[in-house]
């Protein structure tokens, strides 16, 4: 749609739509005028006369290869899964190559996109018609725009690094080929999620990443804990998926389409009622909570750490769990319009920050601490995107920075776990920094990034979010800002605790005896990716935030932020506060875990405070789920099985038994005595005669 017939209408995309509508119906609805003034969006347009929506530029040139992004890893997965053991020897190399190739394609497309004018930076590729049923027309279409571009780079970039890392990490695992096949499948699904040009394709990717996550969590499925964790993850994700599915149905019922340009255009143009819009937003939010491990659906994410560590890094830290943030950002025109839904988003974000931080302080399992850290960091992202246009880009920036440093932290923890013979209890670590210098440095950089040491990436992104929270204004702004500030402090505390317990202090493991450990630095194939991610953790934040690079880049998709609004607190004050709080957290942890000796075994619940006990039990989230959903569900199931056998089938069998009994009685009349038969015949004859006479006379 390079040249639209009604060029004057191009200033406001929805206006284009209304222009055409008006032109065809020769009447101007009252909505038309209001939408011109209120619509902040400048990119939604009418469908072309062919079957595909072309509010976006049609893919041409290099962009006609957009589908390759998806198909490369998908092909890798298929070859590895169907090839079977024949591909065992080189399977990991193929998987990594597929991922790297996808990254290269992503890079080429990204630079091509940058080379375009700002208004042409949304390229849609129509693949085929997926589900066409009269009014319900869903195409398999891809959209490569500013938002999906950064996600594609994050997914394939970090993905490729983790593929490389896994070559070393999974070197001795008999199922390595299968592992790489699933990773490739995940990449393809995740790319489908971010590249889809309508909500149903997004939903497909959404559930498929859930599948990949399920497959990879239960990768060691002979361990019952892994199998259970995988199922738990799938169930809880499905609860969220219900929300997303319902949101899509509601979009279809309201707008008659699930395409981004139609739905978001309608949202931006204010032609959807506020109630409906809020309902859609809240349903989307339910989906986002499920996928991103946000309150109240956070309980599956820590359990998902049963999967191999590279998976925790790739899926459960850097990419998949942030899909919720992507969803909200993608649907930003909807959220922008509904204050009510955004309030819920920020509340969920704030609550989750606190939950994740508090529990993160209590665990001794290094991966669980990182998992709860992920939960709380995603809480920050939710908080940011919940703030509306001021925060969308900040949320995405934190997401990208988090992708680097959290993936790096997980890979580092994998390196440590590897070195310590699969021991994950931090209390059994200590003093590893001399033995694993590369891991120490890279992990340390990631650690400094997450606690927000300037000028590392976490400092820029988190600081901005806290600032934006305060800027929301009013009491709620202060509450949110203080919560975020508190979170920053606790984050500094538990991450310092983790870092000190692992790398510093005395060695709480023995190098001789029955449980001898011989920690050693990991091979280059593992440390290489860690180093690259560490570089990313150092520079990413500054790159995105300073000068508003990312904000400007994403503005066409997410809307302009009102940067120069009045500040509640001046940025300098917020920064100072943030640094102060983080320093406090650091100091607390340093005093507690460096200055004082650390027990090699955690104290029992009876000797620690109430809060610690609660945190050790995930703030009773699992207990709650079990008591409220699982147990009653089990009883209900058992009751229904009983009811079906005794009640419903009992009714049937009862009827059968009744008829059987009746005929058993009736057959007794067949006595075998001829004369009684003769009597009954006579009786019958008399009856007939009497009846005949009655009829005759009556």
């Amino acid at each position, binding site marked *: 749609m390079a040249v639209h017939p009604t060029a004057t209408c191009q200033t406001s995309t929805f206006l284009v739509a209304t222009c055409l509508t008006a032109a065809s119906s020769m009447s101007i609805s009252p909505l038309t005028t209001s939408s011109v003034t209120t619509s902040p969006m400048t990119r939604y347009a009418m469908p072309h006369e062919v079957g595909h929506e072309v509010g976006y530029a049609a893919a041409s040139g290099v962009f006609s290869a957009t589908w390759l992004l998806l198909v490369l890893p998908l092909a890798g997965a298929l070859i590895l899964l169907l090839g079977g053991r024949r591909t065992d020897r080189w399977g990991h190399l193929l998987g990594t190559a597929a991922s790297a190739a996808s990254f290269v394609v992503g890079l080429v497309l990204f630079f091509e996109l940058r080379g375009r004018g700002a208004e042409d930076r949304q390229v849609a590729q129509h693949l085929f018609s997926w*589900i066409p049923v009269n009014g319900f*027309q869903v195409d398999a279409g891809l959209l490569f725009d500013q938002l999906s571009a950064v996600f594609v780079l994050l997914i394939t970039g970090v993905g490729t690094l983790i593929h490389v890392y896994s070559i070393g990490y999974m070197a001795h695992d008999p199922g390595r080929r299968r592992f790489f096949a699933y990773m490739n499948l995940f990449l393809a699904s995740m790319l489908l999620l971010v590249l889809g040009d309508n909500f149903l394709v997004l939903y*497909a990717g959404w*559930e*498929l990443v859930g599948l990949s996550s399920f497959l990879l969590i239960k990768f060691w499925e002979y361990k019952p804990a892994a199998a259970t964790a995988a199922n738990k993850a799938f169930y809880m994700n499905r609860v969220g998926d219900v929300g997303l*599915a319902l949101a899509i*149905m509601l979009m279809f019922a309201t*707008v008659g389409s699930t395409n981004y340009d*139609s739905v978001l255009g309608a949202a931006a143009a204010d032609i959807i009622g506020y109630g409906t819009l809020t309902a859609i937003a809240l349903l989307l939010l339910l989906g986002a909570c499920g996928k991103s491990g946000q309150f109240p659906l956070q309980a599956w994410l820590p359990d998902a750490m049963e999967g191999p560590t590279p998976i925790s890094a790739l899926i459960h830290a850097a990419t998949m769990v942030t899909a919720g943030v992507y969803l909200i950002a993608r649907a930003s025109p909807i959220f922008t319009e509904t204050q009510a839904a955004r309030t819920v988003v920020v509340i969920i974000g704030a609550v989750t920050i606190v939950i994740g931080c508090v529990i993160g302080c209590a665990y001794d399992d290094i991966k669980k601490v990182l998992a709860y850290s992920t939960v709380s960091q995603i809480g920050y992202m939710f908080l940011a995107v919940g703030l509306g246009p001021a925060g969308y880009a900040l949320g995405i920036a934190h997401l990208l920075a988090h992708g680097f440093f959290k993936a790096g932290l997980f890979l580092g923890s994998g390196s440590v776990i590897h070195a310590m013979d699969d021991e994950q209890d931090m209390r059994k670590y200590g003093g590893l920094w001399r033995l694993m210098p590369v891991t120490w440095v890279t992990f340390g950089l990631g650690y400094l990034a997450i606690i927000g040491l300037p000028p590392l990436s976490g400092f820029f992104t988190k600081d901005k979010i806290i600032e934006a929270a305060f800027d929301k204004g009013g009491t709620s702004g202060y509450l949110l800002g203080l919560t975020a500030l508190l979170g920053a402090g606790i984050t500094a505390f538990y991450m310092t605790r983790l870092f000190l317990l692992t790398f510093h202090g005395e060695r709480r493991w023995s190098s001789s005896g029955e449980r001898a450990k011989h920690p050693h630095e990991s091979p280059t194939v593992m440390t290489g990716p860690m180093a690259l991610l560490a570089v990313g953790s150092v520079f990413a934040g500054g790159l995105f935030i300073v000068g508003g690079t990312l904000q400007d880049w994403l503005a066409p998709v997410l809307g302009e932020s009102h940067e120069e609004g009045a500040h509640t607190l001046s940025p300098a004050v917020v920064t100072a506060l943030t640094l102060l709080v983080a320093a406090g957290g650091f100091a607390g942890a340093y005093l507690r875990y460096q200055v004082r000796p650390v027990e090699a075994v955690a104290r029992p619940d009876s000797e620690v405070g109430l809060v610690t006990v609660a945190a050790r039990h995930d703030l009773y989230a699992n207990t709650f789920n079990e008591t409220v959903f699982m147990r009653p569900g089990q009883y209900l199931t058992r009751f229904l099985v009983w009811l079906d056998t005794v009640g*419903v089938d009992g009714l049937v069998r009862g009827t059968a038994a009744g008829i059987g009994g009746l005929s058993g009685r009736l057959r007794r009349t067949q006595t075998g005595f001829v004369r009684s038969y003769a009597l009954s015949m006579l009786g019958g004859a008399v009856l007939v005669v009497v009846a005949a006479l009655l009829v005759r006379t009556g």
Partner: protein
Amino acid sequence: MNSFPWLTLLLIIPAAAAVVVAVVPRRLGTLAKQITLAVTLVEFVLALLATIAYEPARAGFQFAQKYSWIKQFGISYSVGADGISLVLILLATLLVPIVVLASWDEVDAASPDGTPVVGRRSVPAFFALLLALEAGMVGVFAATDVFLFYVFFEAMLIPMYFLIGSYGPVKEQAQRSYAAVKFLLYSLLGGLLMLAAVIGLYVVSADQLGTGTFDFATLRQLDITPGVQKLLFLGFFVAFAIKAPLFPFHTWLPDAGAQSPTGGAILLVGVLDKVGTFGLIRYCIPLFPEASSYFAPMVLALAVIGIFYGALLAIGQRDMKRLVAYTSLAHFGFIAMGTFALTSQAGTGAVLYMVNHGLSTGLLFLVVGFLVARRGSRDVGAYRGMAQVTPTLAGVFLIAGLSSLALPGLNSFVSEFLVLAGTFTRYRALAIVATVGIVLAAIYILYLYQRTMTGPLVSEDARGVLDLSVREKIVVAPVVALIIALGIYPKPLIDIVRPTVTATFEDAGHTDPAPTAPVNASQTGGHS
């Protein structure tokens, strides 16, 4: 090409082959198998060719043939295909060769512990029954004379009765007889009510037209008073609700499913039960439009109850075949809901669901059958950690399960989402409730997978269990391929089904609700 007697041919070939195979001597069992396989493959190719020859854009029945049969009552042998019946015939003819190949060794094999099979189990008779069943299935979908439909509806029961009664689990003589009789009685009861309604239709047609007829196209034109419509509707509906089955007419299904041989179970749940759902959309809605609208809330309520009831019961089962049967109860709930939401999306979704459910549940039954053949037990307790020794089987199991829980990218998703979205436009609350059912679907499938495939291996003797053989791989490969292909590109199927469903609903006076805030004046996409 349309004058070619596709349907009659499809009907005669298996019927004739059934006779031929039935007279093959028992010692030539392999010959009987080979003949059956060849015939069913030819049958499938024919059905495929017929599908290619079918012109979706044309209204009305195609490949129609009509010969007077009992002139006095206006009964004729008349067959024809529309989009709905065509895809179901295709499904039936696809599943039968797969069933034949899957049952290759099932009948003459010794029981799992090695003792020879006692009793009279004739291999040729088994395959003759399968062929007879195939003829019945094709006939019931192809018939365009209501009486002929009734005849096939009842005729199908006979081979199925024997398949359950004579070829069910070897050691469970009493249970399989019970299941067979239960199946037969239930179906006969429904058939009886339908017969009454069929005769009622004849009487009404005699009143209105002077001469009575059973011709479907003519009966559609009748103007039946609402009161009579309701009675006749109920007659048909109960028959179909038993056949499908819908809650609360379902209790025969778990028994029959568990006691059937694997092949029988696949055809029973995969195709035979579809006659019920097929009847709902083919007969109930066009013949009794007012009654359909009147009873729609009741049917929808039963459907939603079925979705949850079936799912919860499936979670509580320990017998794997019963479990799969209960999952079908939930799926039939979705199909019935899609049919009676009376929107073209939901209706198209329902018909697709029939096909997709045949594939996914067929595959589930196949895999469960493979497991049972290996360990000789249907109880989940006999399995744990099987993925370690049978990874391919576990993978296929997972694909079947994921299809059953409607994962996007696999076939069932398209149909389930269409049903839900189509229902949502008219009955929001209902669709919302039904959507929650997808969580339960995840639970019953993955809980089963967890109990059977993951964890430490159940016992040391299970270490010797073999993974899928080449024959078994050949059996599952086409189904797996179709499950994936129809998930990614369902358009060919949709294009066949959609026009018929749309016409059916529009003729009955049901139009799709319009979007409340349409953004596009001209909706995208040509309705090709």
